[in-house]
């Protein structure tokens, strides 16, 4: 008989309140294999990951490890079976105030048989050995919160390895990583694969999937609709995810004519983050801003919005100097920000969708300060229809998928009269279909307002922006019109520290 696969799922499913969110999923992963999982928002990826990591007490079907059924009814059960995960929000699995060493041996500390008396030196020695397995070189005594995102990921991977994990799930691990960091993560993943682990890699970024995986699985509406045994093309995957060929791979090249200049930023400074950034943006154009994570894009947008204090620089709107000290001032002037972290900064998670939509321009739905409930509901319903917001739109916004939540954040600003739209990583964690809708919406909005589109996804900026700025270390290091520059040049410019380019 052949060797059984490392892990095999047989007819795995999950129902909530009688509704099946995942149906009859069967696949296996062999030792030394990277299998990718993709699907649109709401396809059931998270549910599947949660089942595999023992988040739910019950599920349908069975999971075998080395041919024996594993009982994944608790996180510790899943870990005992050899399954562990590295999540996008890696902070959720780290105790921020404990040291790196303590975090590395956290599971062992949690073991009731671990000695009560802790010897710091022994813990650190033990932890150092674990850290070496993934080449994590940091001071073991530092509080874990001071690590970079990538170091935190390595910490979680090392911890899993120390628990003899055999199947590692990566859930959107690159969402906040810069390009070089992604390369380094991929090297680690390949190394894990060569050591015989089975990897399940989950991501929205098709180009990454293609680069790292041996096989690709596609979920749609809770079912496994396709399993590619060799690496397919991005278009094949998108077709399988959407159930139909994608409308177009990239937004149509756009014959635009930039209108009057709307926004002029002159010498914007934010202490330690943004250094003397100047540019102008016109109505009718999308100004892309790209650069690595940490290049200062977010800080620049937040400073323009008054969310963080500017240490110098002025902002002109339609040629007039405007005083923007707080977000309130920006909103009054028609400068709107869609923040990077939509759950933490963009949404009232316990509010229903309609209350989120009406929150910014509530006065529009009020008479003498009293909310006109009918008009509020009507306005929200129109916006829900206009943006094709789908899912449980009656319930709290927390229950919507990421893409739909992002539409809600965009939608709440569309009740206003935007002059400048500051969009920060608006497609992060958003599926291919919704992404296209957002691109179209952004294009549409650029007719009314100057749009600043910040993203560390260079391809996205290249295909969408009419002009683009490249940022590095808080400075603008390149400025190009559409078609003037290619991906490679931008990447070099964004990453290069030796060659200073003055623009």
């Amino acid at each position, binding site marked *: 008989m052949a060797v059984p696969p490392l892990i095999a799922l047989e007819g795995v499913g999950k129902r909530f309140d009688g509704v099946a969110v995942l149906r009859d999923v069967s696949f296996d992963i062999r030792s030394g294999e990277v299998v990718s999982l993709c699907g649109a928002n709401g396809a059931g990826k998270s549910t599947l990951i949660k089942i595999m990591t023992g988040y739910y007490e019950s599920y349908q079907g069975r999971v075998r490890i080395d041919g024996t059924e594993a009982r994944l009814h608790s996180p510790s059960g899943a870990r005992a079976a050899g399954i562990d995960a590295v999540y996008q929000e890696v902070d959720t699995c780290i105790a921020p105030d404990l040291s790196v060493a303590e975090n590395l041996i956290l599971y062992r500390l949690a073991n009731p048989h671990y000695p009560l008396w802790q010897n710091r030196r022994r813990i650190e020695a033990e932890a150092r050995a674990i850290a070496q397995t993934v080449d994590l070189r940091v001071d073991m005594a530092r509080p874990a919160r001071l690590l970079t995102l990538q170091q935190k990921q390595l910490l979680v991977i090392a911890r899993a390895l120390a628990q003899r994990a055999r199947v590692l799930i990566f859930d959107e691990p690159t969402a906040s990583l810069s390009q070089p960091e992604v390369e380094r993560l991929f090297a680690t993943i390949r190394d894990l694969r060569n050591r015989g682990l089975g990897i399940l890699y989950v991501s929205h970024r098709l180009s990454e999937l293609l680069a790292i995986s041996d096989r690709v699985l596609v979920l749609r509406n809770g079912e496994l609709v396709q399993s590619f045994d060799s690496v397919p093309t991005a278009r094949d995957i998108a077709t399988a995810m959407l159930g139909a060929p994608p409308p177009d791979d990239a937004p149509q090249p756009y014959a635009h004519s930039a209108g009057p200049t709307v926004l002029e930023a002159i010498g914007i400074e934010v202490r330690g983050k943004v250094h003397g950034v100047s540019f102008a943006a016109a109505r009718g154009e999308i100004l892309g801003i790209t650069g690595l994570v940490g290049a200062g894009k977010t800080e620049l947008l937040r400073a323009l919005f008054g969310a963080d204090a500017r240490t110098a620089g002025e902002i002109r709107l339609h040629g007039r100097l405007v005083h923007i000290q707080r977000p*309130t001032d920006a909103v009054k002037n028609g400068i709107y920000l869609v923040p990077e972290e939509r759950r*933490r900064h963009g949404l009232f998670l316990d509010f229903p969708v309609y209350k989120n939509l009406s929150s910014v321009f509530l006065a529009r739905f009020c008479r003498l300060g009293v909310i006109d*409930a009918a008009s509020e509901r009507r306005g929200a319903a129109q916006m829900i229809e206009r943006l094709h917001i789908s899912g449980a739109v009656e319930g709290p916004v927390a229950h919507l998928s990421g893409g739909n939540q992002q539409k809600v954040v965009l939608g709440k600003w569309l009740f206003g009269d935007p002059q400048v739209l500051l969009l920060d990583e608006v497609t992060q964690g958003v599926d291919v279909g919704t992404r296209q809708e957002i691109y179209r919406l952004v294009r549409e909005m650029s007719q009314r307002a100057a749009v600043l589109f910040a993203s560390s996804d260079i391809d996205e900026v290249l295909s969408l922006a009419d002009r683009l700025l490249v940022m590095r270390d808080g400075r603008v290091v390149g400025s190009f019109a559409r078609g003037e520059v290619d991906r490679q040049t931008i990447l070099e410019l964004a990453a290069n520290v030796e060659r200073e380019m003055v623009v």
Partner: protein
Amino acid sequence: MTPSQRPAQETHVRATRDWAPALQGLFLRWGILAVLFGLIVYLSMVQPQFLTITNWTNLIRDMSVETLVALAVTVSVVVAGFDVSVGAVAGMAVIVSMMAMVVYHASAAEAVGLSLLSGLVIGAVNAFLIVRLRLPDLLATLGMLFVVDGVQQVFVAGQTITPGMTLPNGSSATGTIQPSFLAIDQGRFLHLPISIWIMFAVAMLLWFFLSSTRVGRLMYAVGSNQEAARLSGVNVGAYKTGAYLLSGFLAALGGVVLAARIGVGEQLAGDPYMLNGVAASMIGFAVLGSGRANVFGTFIGALLMAVMVNGFTMLNVPYYTQQAMLGAVMLAALALSYAVKSRG
């Protein structure tokens, strides 16, 4: 593994899961109201005097101070703050109103006005500590609790304020407590004590304000996610300040009703109302499964506690056991409201 047993177990689990959430949902939504209703039915059956107009008039009148103080807590919790100085503020209002009349010959209206003003001033200090100095809400208002209690003791210098009391300079106080002031609790309008009218009017107004006005909605927004509110252009500091001013005002109003009830300026008279107010507000989270501070829930919480105290007293339950029972009810309610939250 025993394959023959697995499917049976699976079906069993699934069958339980189908009706359990629905029942659970019903319980979470109606639990508190069902307990309240059950308690009323039980007390009506075992105590004929319980379900009488006289008893209920007394019961609701008794709860008016608690309710006003609880609404003060509720307003602060709406903006994700926490005002524990409310009891001290109510006590301050008792002292201020009585001193105004007895020592400074103030009219009833002046006494009420000064008391409410003192509430607003304390609310403003709370807001300053929290919004400007960025102290955590609980710590700032806890500190103010001590300060305000201390100031009361300084004002009265260990005495109880009554007409004819000896003043620190040796003379006697010559003012009187105005009958029109005492009428706030002891007088009647359309057969009901005026304090009941005040409580209902304030509760209705506050309910309308929080649930139907723009400012009320934005207070909830600030409480839901302060940073998202700020990035939506909401002046978060102003809304928090407003909430603490309102909280101070409502607590002082509770103190005015209390002063009219006890008729003397006793120091620290408001302190016991803080814990009851917090309890009523927290029980309110669980009413109708709202999962957040709300006026109707707070009212039901206060009513539940009033019914318990009233009923226990009628049943001759020793007073010294009542607090433990109230505590148990509050914990049960909290368990309910947190279950609501974790269900989302």
